[in-house]
């Protein structure tokens, strides 16, 4: 998950993919490379079966840690800090898919495209393709905003792969961090009062995970 833009939705994507792939039966390793430790906090409230989390992964060890965690039937998810740092370029060099989450705003598009530019330069430097895609986040469930339509058209024109569906703005996605675990557990727990439609969030997250799976299989 790479975007130097803070709050774009990297950690949310990471949790949704980790829990989604774990439900599909994969062994998932999540590398929390963000000193703010969003993922480690989430995990501390209950880590679903099939997921291992490595906290505090440093730039110098990243390549080795990814190689050790990778394998057939395994998914390695790297959550990065929302900042332009060298660990981002290293993570990109190892990725089978770089996901750049972007809110449909001009600022997110501009700062997020820094990550896309970096991917393209690394492709040139290494002489290999590094698959990458944008996912729009916090989109409106009701209507597609003008900015979102324009951004989609812009990305399309630039030949950037756009993951469909986008991740809709849903309270359940934000609440995941407070409760730990996954959306299904959240829905099943009668003690969790959520302000949002968890069922719709689950469908959205599943379709998103499927779309990512199609790109890495």
């Amino acid at each position, binding site marked *: 998950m790479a975007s*130097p833009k803070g709050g774009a939705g990297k950690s949310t994507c990471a949790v949704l993919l980790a829990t989604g*792939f774990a*439900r*599909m*039966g*994969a062994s998932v390793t999540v590398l929390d490379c963000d*000193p703010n430790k969003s993922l480690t906090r989430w995990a501390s409230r209950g880590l679903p079966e099939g997921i291992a989390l490595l906290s505090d992964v*440093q*730039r*110098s060890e990243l*390549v080795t840690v*990814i*190689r050790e965690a*990778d*394998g*057939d*039937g*395994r*998914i390695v998810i790297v959550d990065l800090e929302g*900042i*332009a*740092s*060298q*660990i*981002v*370029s*290293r993570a*990109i*060099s*190892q990725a*089978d898919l770089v996901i750049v989450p972007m809110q449909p705003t001009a600022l997110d598009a501009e700062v997020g495209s*820094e990550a896309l*530019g*970096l991917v393209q*330069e*690394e492709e040139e*430097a*290494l002489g290999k393709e590094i698959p990458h895609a944008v996912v729009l986040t916090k989109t409106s469930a009701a209507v597609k905003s003008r900015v979102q339509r324009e951004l989609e058209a812009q990305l399309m024109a630039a030949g950037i792969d756009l993951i469909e569906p986008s991740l809709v703005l849903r309270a359940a996605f934000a609440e995941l961090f407070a409760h730990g675990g996954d959306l299904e557990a959240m829905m099943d727990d009668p003690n969790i009062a959520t302000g949002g439609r968890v069922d719709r969030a689950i469908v959205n997250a599943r379709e998103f995970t499927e779309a990512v799976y199609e790109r*890495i*299989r």
Partner: protein
Amino acid sequence: MNASGDRLRGLKARPKNISTEELRKVDRVGEDRGFSDRTPRRKPGRKVSPRTYQLHPKVLPDTGEAIAAEAERLGLTQGQLIERMWQTYRYGTAS
């Protein structure tokens, strides 16, 4: 869940080999775009002792505080007070 587990059999690890030279290239490309090394630098100097939570002297905190208070009362530095204490300990007299 088993059926979906079978689905994931298409999930094959791709080789991940990167030479030192290539990694250097990656770093350089990133650096040029402002993706620089932001690893926090360790602070120089001696590490705080976990026992006393202070650099010096390595004594338990209440002892350290008592020494500090006494030194202040006498108008001495803690080091001067400790030198006196050493005298007493070693020779039985404060010189």
